[in-house]
């Protein structure tokens, strides 16, 4: 009964690839932004904060459409990237990864920011008196102590990226084998006669992935607390 068809497998693999790439590319950027928000005061800080959280409150269709306007072939950034670097997002799986990265960014940044804020700045001062440059203070003290939070943020971001639907389908459509992720595959199957059992199988798969991600995130959060208490 639980036999996955090649189309379903393709959708699952594509979802995993899209979410993995989105998370890995977004993570360094997310860490940098989280550090800025946690440790620095600068002009436009609340604007940056709002901008990052925008995908969380905007209708995903709007985010997807904005991505299409910006990164589409005729979009301002999209045209430039295609002409100069040969990078095309529109209707490609890379575009799906971009949409997922943008949509999951607030969920990725938040735990990282909280865990950086929880790092005792007095330890960072101590590292400075021992000769560590600000960058090395970050790499040897702040980041290791915030690492469980970083991993928790990545897990959460990954889970969000796996399930992303609205922005992805708006931006890169629903092309089997290229941009059809689990979510858009389920959407198509529901609209197909006799698609119910296939849709149900994919639903089970996405529930399993989501639950695993949440348990993983919880585990990392517990490790973070333990680590900060010096055990």
């Amino acid at each position: 009964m639980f036999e996955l068809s090649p189309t379903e497998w393709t959708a699952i693999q594509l979802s995993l690839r899209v979410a993995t790439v989105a998370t890995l590319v977004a993570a360094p950027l997310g860490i940098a932004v989280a550090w800025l928000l946690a440790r620095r005061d600068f002009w436009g800080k609340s604007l940056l904060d709002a901008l990052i959280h925008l995908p969380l409150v905007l209708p995903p269709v709007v985010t997807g459409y904005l991505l299409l306007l910006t990164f589409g072939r005729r979009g301002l950034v999209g045209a430039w990237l295609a002409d100069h670097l040969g990078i095309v997002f529109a209707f490609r799986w890379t575009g799906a990864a971009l949409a997922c990265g943008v949509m999951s960014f607030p969920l990725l940044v938040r735990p990282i920011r909280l865990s950086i804020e929880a790092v005792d700045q007095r330890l960072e001062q101590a590292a400075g008196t021992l000769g560590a440059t600000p960058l090395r203070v970050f790499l040897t003290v702040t980041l290791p102590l915030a690492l469980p939070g970083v991993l928790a943020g990545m897990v959460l971001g990954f889970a969000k990226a796996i399930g992303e639907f609205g922005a992805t389908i708006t931006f890169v459509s629903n092309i089997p084998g290229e941009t059809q992720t689990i979510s858009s595959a389920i959407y198509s199957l529901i609209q197909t006669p006799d698609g119910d059992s296939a849709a149900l199988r994919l639903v089970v798969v996405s529930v399993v992935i989501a639950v695993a991600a949440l348990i993983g995130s919880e585990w990392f959060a517990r490790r973070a607390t333990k680590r900060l208490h010096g055990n």
Partner: protein
Amino acid sequence: MLRVDVAKQLGEFHIEARFASEGRVTGLFGASGAGKTSLINMIAGLLRPDRGTIAINGETLDDTAAGLHVPVHRRRIGYVFQDARLFPHLDVRQNLDYGRRMNRLADDAAARARITDLLDIGHLLERRPGHLSGGERQRVALGRALLAQPRLLLLDEPLGSLDEQRRVEILPYLERLRDEAGIPMIYVSHDPDEMRQLATDIVLLKRGRVAAFGGVEVLPAIASLVR
């Protein structure tokens, strides 16, 4: 030789301090709130003076008129904090090695052995700070600061968070440090007995100003002044 001549406004509190010291252990003495910690934070480079100069062995670290402020990580000034501040994610060995790594110093097994012996922390090397007693933590913090090979060591009430029994346990280590390590120290405390035992010079700080400067013999007279 340490020369300090600084002014700093911290909210309602104003620090204006000036002294020069060549002693092995300069005791920075005063009641809590006299500005002792702010003053050594300025020497360490953690706090930037509003006005004035700080120089050590002829090298200027701060000169506000010239816009000079050597950042904390380039000062080579060790700091032992009241709360030890060991890195919780590193074991004792890695904590001790941290300053050597950050300053890219050559590995000196002899110096390491000498200091772990001096502070009696050789049996703690594999432990995490969470599994140390308060006195052990403070000894490791001392070792960590020393192994970064500082040219000056700042000690901010290193016994302040310890009970009487632990103080008695650590004091002899500090005396050995003074007599054997050969690194000048600034020792912050509000305890006249500690001062008498350790310091060679005394700077008395009162409400942000240097009220007296001299040898240990001035301590009994000034003790009443502080309270």
